[in-house]
């Protein structure tokens, strides 16, 4: 896998046969009960959230769901959330905070939806509020990027104590196609853009943006899920014993440090 180009990974991250958000919930969480709606406008099928048991721990779990099959994918808007999706996610996180439940997010989106209604309902404001509130949420948060990590729409569920990425998942400020069409007026140069953007899991690890790269060898199989479950449980256990002010301070420091090494000048 080492000689895979960045764009090969982009294609792998988008592959239709990749496990989706709901697959992770089904495989990892026992007695999952989906909780719907943002209590303000509606329910966004692109984000699935609810409660259940991860190993022996009661958790709140939130996943971006791209859908399976043409009809389901259409219903789920191909995993491009609307503002009500982000507001539902925040509502469930606040609920988790109240009941001292850790939060686990599975992120897989090409980006927050670019639509007329999404703008009317404040897509930017919804994402901004999540970034702010997650930073001080008084319960552990772990986010796992399982496919595409498309810009602000992915970050809105990834302001976490630890962020992990699957080996072939990507995390990017802009889609390689968008980048190529802006820079070179040619979306066909997406492979070059993907290389330049440094969007692979290994790049993210090198820049300190994530803590772990998870191998995909057994992806989707029982062994893969049981390892992931065990790793999540171990990390939650580690984070749960921290006093809450220390936990949120660490989370702040984690993001505060990003970019510091790249600075020049005084």
């Amino acid at each position: 896998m080492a000689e895979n180009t960045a764009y090969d990974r982009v294609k792998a991250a988008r592959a239709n046969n990749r496990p989706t958000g709901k697959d992770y919930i089904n495989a990892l969480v026992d007695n999952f009960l989906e909780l719907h709606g943002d209590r303000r406008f509606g329910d966004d099928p692109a984000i699935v959230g609810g409660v259940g048991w991860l190993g022996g721990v009661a958790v709140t779990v939130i996943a971006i769901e791209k859908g399976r099959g043409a009809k389901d994918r259409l219903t789920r808007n191909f995993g491009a959330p609307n503002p009500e999706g982000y507001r539902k996610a925040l509502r469930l996180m606040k609920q988790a905070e109240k009941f001292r439940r850790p939060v686990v997010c599975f992120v897989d989106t090409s980006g927050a939806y670019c639509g007329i209604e999404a703008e009317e309902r404040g897509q930017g404001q919804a994402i901004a509020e999540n970034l702010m509130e997650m930073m001080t949420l008084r319960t552990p948060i772990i986010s796992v990027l399982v496919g595409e990590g498309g810009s602000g729409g992915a970050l809105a569920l990834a302001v976490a104590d630890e962020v992990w990425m699957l080996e072939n998942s990507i995390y990017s400020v802009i889609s390689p196609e968008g980048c190529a069409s802006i820079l070179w007026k040619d979306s066909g140069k997406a492979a070059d853009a993907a290389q330049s953007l440094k969007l692979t899991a290994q790049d993210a690890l090198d820049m300190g943006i994530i803590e772990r790269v998870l191998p995909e060898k057994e992806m989707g199989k029982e062994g893969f899920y049981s390892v992931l479950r065990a790793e999540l449980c171990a990390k939650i256990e580690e984070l749960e014993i921290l006093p809450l002010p220390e936990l949120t301070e660490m989370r702040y420091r984690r993001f505060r440090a990003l970019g510091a090494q790249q600075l020049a000048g005084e």
Partner: protein
Amino acid sequence: MPFIDFFNFQPKNELEKGGRQSAPIAQDDNEPAKTCPNCHRQIPLSQLWGNDHCCTNCDYHFRMNSRQRVSFMTDSGSFTELYAGLCADDFLRFPGYPKKLETTRNASRETEAVICGTAKIDGRECCLFVMEPYFMMGSMGVAVGEKITRIFEYAAENSLPVVGCTVSGGARMQEGMLSLMQMAKVSGAVKRHSDAGLLYITLITDPTTGGVTASFAMEGDIILAEPGATIGFAGARVIEQTTRKKLPQGFQTSEFLLSHGFVDAIVPRAQQRKTIGSLLKLHSGGAENG
């Protein structure tokens, strides 16, 4: 004047008769002018500058660079710049970025796309950040994120309000994922400042989109906007391509955001300083005349 005409010289006005000492101030036909994008009239620069960079005919708000905005918004001589030298290099070795930085720095005479500092507005002390439209359209990279984060931390330490003027095309793709992370970093600093009970006023100017809209532009306690500014998350062209729908009239303008509940007030430039000054006063905890 040919020599022979000297004897037939007829003075045309007071000046030529020697009765006046200076010419009346007249329209200088050679004075540079800007065409108003809204009403298409030619506005001489002196008139534009004398009118807060607004069209003298239709009040269209022209783009202002960050230094002009600071001097127009703050009390004379009160601005002290902080973190001025902070910038970032081409750490990703992104194609064309060093050249782009060089030409942008030469043209804008700024090292980065935001300036930060302390200032007084109508006598009230505050921290200020103003983004720079002529530096890659206020593009948010690592240095922009760091400077704004620092000004919020400084404001929290010194119990000062923050006034922020945004203009940005979003996160800077030439700095990749780390520029995306600045959205979270700044948001964290805004939250801490907010949790300390301190005021943050945003003034959104044309255009503010992408990662800046999806972070600190929308995180103000009070969100003000300039008339007619474009404000949105996704770009209009991207939305048209995604949805294949025609965008409604006035989509993503300040007025559109006001009617949908995402902006507190639209404040014309001529009233901004007074409005922000009185908001700072209102939140200063003192008596009305204090």
